[in-house]
Each structure stands twice: as C-alpha cells, then as structure tokens.
C-alpha cells in the first residue's frame, strides 16, 4: 500500500475507539462488586447470579424469542415474495404504489408507525371485534410488517444480480413457473433469504418503540423490560444483561458472517470451476 496516511489511520483508530469504548466499559462494569453502578468496587459475578435467578427476565426473554421467531419467519416469506415480485415483474397494475409501500416503512419514524398500528388495532376491535386484546398477536403482526420490508430490500438486490438465463433455461426445459421458483430461483437466492431472516430476527428482538405502543398488559418483551428499568437510570444488573446480549449477538453475527463468507467464496470457486470445465 503506497497511499497510507498517518491522519487516516489515526482517525480509523479514533473511530473504532469511539464505537467500542462504551460497550467495553459496560462489560467491565457488569463485573463490578459495588451496588453503585458507576463506582468500581472489586470484581464480582453476583449481578449475573441475580440475573439468572430473576424469573421476570426469563419470561421476557422467552416471549421476545417467540415473537422474533414467528415474526421473522413470516416476514421472510412475505418479504421474499415481495422482493421476487419487484425484481421480476416489471409491469403490473399498482406497481408504483407497491414499491412505495415497500420503502415507506423503512423511512417512517417508529413513533408514527407505532401510533398508527395502535390506533388501527383499537379501531378494528371497535368495528369488527378483533383483536380482542393487545399483546402477543398485535406485537407479532406489527413486527412482521416492519421486518418484511428489510427482507424485501435484501432479496430484491440479490435477485437483480442473479443470472436470469438459468431461470429461462428451466422454463425452456418445461418447468412450470412456480416450479422454476422453487427449484431454481429460491436455491440461488438462499443466502440472501437467510441474511434477511437474520436481520428480521434481530430487528424484532431489538424493537422497543413499536412494541411499547402495541403491547397490552402483562406482555413485556425483553427490550420493554430493559426500557422500563433503564428509564430509571444505570443499574448493575442491566449491565450484566447487556453484556450477555451483546456478547451473544456479537458471537452469532461473527459466526454467521464467517459461514456466509465461506459459502459465498465456495460458490464463486465452484462457478469458476464450472465455467472452466465448459471451455
């Protein structure tokens, strides 16, 4: 590398320090023996012990995981359908509105999405008697809606890169359109679908604002529990909880990143080999 500049490298180090020092500090203080969250009082793991004994935290975690699993899966199906639609069908009635509807949730402020969803559910309950009560169902429906557009963005981008000739070849060989989708298109874009699911899962697991609007009594997800505690200030047990969440997600993303990178480079290698075999 010839164009290395001290200034740029310094800024890079400064930037990463900025990004990681708060998180590292939080991790260190989760092992703080003192009751005062910001004063160091010796190494201790007692906050982790009290966290593991806290039934409220476990219930909230299980609820959050259930909602995230269901909403990420349905959002992935709907989002993939929308992504394929936008990439493949260039002309159908209402396409402009559809592509707008796919982008709008991405830029809509969460407060507004939350309020509109809540009012919608309240009015629906008034008009048609559904949903009877707010909670698991309403949170899941809201999460599906704003997670699916993230999946759509990823799938659509991947579809535009994909080689259409393979799909056309399958058509020429007599496959029905839906067979082409299941046998050719979906396997080709599978990595994109997988990363879409992962993104939807983490977004659902992380959501505070929209959940806080559409939840009902007794349905506290983990972010909502953290939110209600954090509003009162810094406490050592939240430090411990935060550390566990950050480390889990960090390791998960790292593993997923490594697996996806490996799969991608293997695919490229195989493609290259296949082309060479053709020559």
């Amino acid at each position, binding site marked *: *590398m010839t*164009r*290395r*500049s001290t200034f*740029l*490298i310094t*800024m*890079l180090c*400064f*930037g*990463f320090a*900025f*990004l990681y020092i708060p*998180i590292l*500090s*939080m991790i260190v203080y989760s092992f703080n023996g003192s009751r*005062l*969250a*910001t004063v*160091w009082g010796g190494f201790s793991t007692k906050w982790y012990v009290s966290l593991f004994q806290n039934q409220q935290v476990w219930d909230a975690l299980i609820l959050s995981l259930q909602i995230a699993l269901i909403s990420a899966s349905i959002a992935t199906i709907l989002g993939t*359908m*929308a992504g394929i*639609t936008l990439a493949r*069908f260039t002309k*159908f009635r209402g396409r402009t509105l*559809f592509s707008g*509807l796919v982008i709008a949730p991405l*830029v*809509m*402020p*969460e*407060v*507004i999405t939350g*309020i*509109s*969803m809540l*009012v*919608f559910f*309240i*009015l629906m309950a*008034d008009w048609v008697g559904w949903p009877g009560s707010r909670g698991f169902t309403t949170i899941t429906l809201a999460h*599906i809606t704003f997670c*699916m557009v993230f999946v759509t963005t990823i799938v659509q981008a991947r579809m535009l890169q994909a080689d259409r000739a393979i799909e056309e070849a399958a058509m020429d060989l007599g496959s029905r*359109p*839906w067979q082409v989708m299941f046998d050719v298109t979906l396997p080709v874009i599978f990595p994109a679908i997988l990363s879409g699911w992962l993104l939807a899962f983490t977004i659902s697991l*992380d959501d*505070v*604002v929209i959940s806080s609007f559409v939840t009902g009594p007794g349905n506290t997800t983990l*972010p909502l529990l*953290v*939110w209600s505690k*954090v*509003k009162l*200030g*810094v406490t050592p047990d*939240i430090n411990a909880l935060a550390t566990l*969440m950050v480390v889990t997600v*960090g390791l998960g993303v*790292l593993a997923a*990143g490594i697996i996806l990178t490996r799969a991608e480079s293997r695919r490229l290698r195989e493609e290259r080999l296949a082309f060479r075999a053709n020559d």
Partner: protein
Amino acid sequence: MDKHPLRRWFDLKGWRALLIGVPYLWLILFFLLPFLIVVVMSVATNTPTAPPFSIGGEHPWVNLGPFSRVFTDSLYLRAFMTSVLNAALTAMLCLLIGYPMALALTRVSRGWRTILLMLVILPFWTSFLLRVYAWMGLMGKNSWFNGLLTDSWNFLVPLDWAVKSVPLMNTNFAVVLVMVYTYLPFMILPLYASLERLDPTLDEAAMDLGSRPHQVFWDVTLPQSIPGIVAGGMLVFIPAAGELVIPTLVGNASQPMIGKIIQDEFGQARDWPMASAVAVALLVLMVIPTMLYSHYQARAEGSK
C-alpha cells in the same frame, strides 16, 4: 401434461397473482390503512370519548385546528427546530468522523478490510437500546469517563472555572453525541461503498500532473464521493429527526424533540388529532429531503 383449466390458469396467472397479491394486501392492511387512519385523524376533533376523537359529525367536517397549532404554537415550532438542528448536526458530525474512516478502510489490506468492516457493522446488530444505555453509564456524574473529562477540563482552565463534574447527562449535547454514536455505521457504509468504486489511477494521474495529496482529495476524491455523502446523510438525518428513545433517556426534558411531543400528545394528553397532525407535519418535513435525494439521484443516473 395436465391440461386441467384450473391448473393452466394457475400456471399462467394464478401463481403470479399469489406472489404479488399476498405481500401487497398485507402492506395495504397493516401499513397503508393504519397510516391513512392517522392522516384522517389529523383533521378530526378531540372528544372525551373512547376512542378520543370524532370526525364528520357537524359542520365544519374537517377540523384544521391541530394543524394551525403546529404552525403557531411555540412548543411545536421549537420541538421541530430542535429535531432538525440535532439531526443535521448529527449527520454533519457523522460525516466528519465517518469520511476519514471510510477512506482509510479503502486503503488497508484486503484481510484487514474484511475484519474492520465487520467491526463497523457489529454494533448495528447488537441492541440499539443497550448501546444508548452504555453511554448513560459513561456520562453519569461518578463515571470514570466523566471523571477523566472533568480532570482535563480543570487542568486546562483557570481555577475559577473548575467544576465538580462535567454536566453531560440530560443535555442536548448528550442527545447529539449518542445519536452520532448509534448512527455512525449508517454513514460509514454508503461512504465506503462509493469510495471503494473509485478508480485509483485517477489519483495517480492527478499526482503525476503535480497535485499535492490534499489537492487530490479536494479535486478528485471528494467530488466523486458526493453520492455516498448524500446517501449517508439521508440515512442518518431521517431516523435522527424522528428519534424517540435517545432524547427520552439522555436528553433534556425541557428541550424535547418532535418524537417525544408526538408520544406525549398521544399518550399523556390523549389528544390523538394533535398527535396525528404533528406526525403528518414531521412526515412532510422528511419527505422534502427524500424527494430532493431521489431527484438528485435521478439526475446523477441521467448524466452517466
């Protein structure tokens, strides 16, 4: 081959209609319809019923009161000003920190690049709420970080100005600082994407023609990366303007941002028409930069 008419219909049209229709209907029912309800509610009248609004009862059918209050009441005007200023400042600071980082990322070796890019994205995958919370721990009065800042402040200024601790928590500065922290990856990634595509031979050509490194940057690199700057700026500005969590946790309650106003009008004041009117005004405010952006992008595509 099976020639059952229903099957033929499904192959020709049905599966396609299914593929388009299901996500389309979902978004209409759970996104467009709720949004339209909010728009309609913004011209409704606040009533002490449940739900607390009525529309179309008596003449005049639409109530423009909430909207006129948005543009006249200083509470809303100040909140809009605070939001726009905070968001613009955040976008600017993200650019100042993110640009050198993105540029440096394009110049390190391939192996390092993969690792560092992953490190940029990693915080984005961890909980947003907890990243804000991490700063609450740093900014508090007794924290080591605040102590460090206080000591360096007291060391630098005359004795009369010495402070016990730097007031960080519950200030507007804290809001901007934490927003820069949480949105920095949104700036770095589009900048990196646009800088990575640049042709390094252009730099070399400028150097050969006698430009000094900083001239190369201003004349060659920067103009070519404007699409990335605009994209990153939008990605930071838009969510920052509507931010709710960060001002609630670290902000100054007497200097609220617009997201908090919407929430309070809706929740505490139970004035749904007012909350909707502020929400619609915020959306209009955001639509303007979005339209400028797409206009700009269309022009950039056209000139290629």
